[in-house]
């Protein structure tokens, strides 16, 4: 701005706008599309969650080299941590007291939750889709055993975690889900000590029942959680 322009601006100060809000409200404002909204949500997922995903993927990819014959157990033990990341991210709004603010917006808390579940669920499936076939190919056990041994801890932790965050609110829920995830993870690692006990044809039915039951409970709890956003409960 030149000196003259500055002087003119100072001499003829523009009047403050009158009825600006009323004038602007006459125009139909453009809206953010649903696709753009979902994409925008990816940017608001915690850095720690993305870092966790990357770390699990790298560890799983390196496992055939680093832990060699224990790759199956190692990858399986990482799955509860993957589920922990997904569940804790889905409970982020309540954890940081943002749920009430998000609930009254145009897209509402339900859309926020669904957008996060779509993004993270997709990421989780990608990790599973890479890890499960990799260990199936690398280990000596039958493919169905290996596959079930990888997905069961994931769905079991997801189901328990979603059940927990629906009943317990705030930071306490995250601590509980963390404890559950580590408990499942440790169980998987302990199972390595006696593989013949778990990797026998008699156990395949048990794994299938646990995996199917956990998957069903995960879907059920996910639906309940989305429905639950219609009304935010709090202690009065």
């Amino acid at each position, binding site marked *: 701005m030149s000196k003259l322009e500055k002087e003119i601006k100072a001499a003829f100060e523009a009047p403050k706008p009158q009825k600006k809000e009323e004038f602007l409200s006459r125009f139909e404002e*453009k809206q*953010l599309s649903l696709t*753009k909204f979902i994409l925008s949500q990816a940017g608001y997922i915690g850095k720690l969650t993305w870092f966790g995903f990357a770390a699990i993927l790298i560890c799983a990819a390196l496992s055939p080299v680093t832990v060699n014959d224990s790759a199956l157990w190692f990858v399986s033990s990482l799955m509860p941590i993957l589920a922990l990341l997904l569940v804790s991210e889905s409970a982020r709004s309540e954890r940081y007291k943002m749920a*009430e*603010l998000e609930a009254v917006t145009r*897209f509402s808390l339900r859309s926020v939750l669904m957008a996060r579940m779509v993004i993270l669920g997709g990421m989780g499936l990608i990790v599973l889709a890479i890890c499960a076939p990799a260990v199936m190919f690398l280990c000596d056990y039958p493919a169905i055993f290996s596959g079930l041994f990888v997905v069961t801890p994931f769905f079991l932790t997801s189901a328990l975690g979603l059940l927990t965050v629906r009943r317990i609110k705030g930071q306490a829920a995250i601590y509980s889900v963390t404890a559950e995830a580590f408990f499942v993870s440790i169980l998987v690692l302990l199972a390595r000590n006696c593989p013949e006990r778990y990797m026998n044809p008699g156990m395949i039915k048990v794994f299938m029942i646990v995996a199917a039951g956990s998957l069903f409970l995960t879907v059920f709890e996910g639906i309940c959680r989305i429905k639950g956003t219609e009304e*935010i409960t709090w202690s009065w």
Partner: protein
Amino acid sequence: MELVIEGLSKNFKDTKAVSDISVTLHKGVYGLLGANGAGKSTLMRMICGILKPSSGRVSFDGMDVSEEGFRAVLGYLPQDFGYYPEFKARDFLLYMAALKAIPKKEALARTEELLELVGLKEVSKKKIKTFSGGMKQRLGIAQALLNRPKLLVLDEPTAGLDPKERVRFRNLIEKTGHDCIVILSTHIVSDIEHISDEVMIMREGRFIYQGKWTDEQTSLEDFYLKQFEEAEEDE
């Protein structure tokens, strides 16, 4: 512009938090007064659609509280709200703008405008966790105004504000009230004494008074206490 509340009630197990409230509000600032536990926040939450009423209905210009259109015209500041730990003031407003379906370009412009309005422009790139209570509250007010609301619901908005900030806040609400319906709940009488067109006084989930108080030849504080005494005498 009309907010209609019809027979609104909310029960929590054996407790009647709000009992059969009916009122129609038009453009202006409405002060909702009541002691702690009177049912103000429950009523506000039902008006915003966060809580489902046990009975009754809330609508704005014919739109039900559950409709997206209702949320599109609503601005809400809860009594207690948080933020994601990594958020800076500007990020917080941009995030809320995305949720309010405001396109990025408009959101950026509106964010700058509101940060200026609430006096947070200088600290817009600082993390919210470094803010004082008053600064957080001002940021909360800014997010409520992002979508140019026609219905602005403020639950105890002056909590944590120092006297200077309170005056600034009152001026802001007074100005906003010319273009929309503002419902401001508080238990501090002086917060609404000079800015509200009407007062609604709540006690044990019911309105014990609703209307203009300026017609009365007394201060709002005395008038408020008188209503409570009369309500107690009636029981």
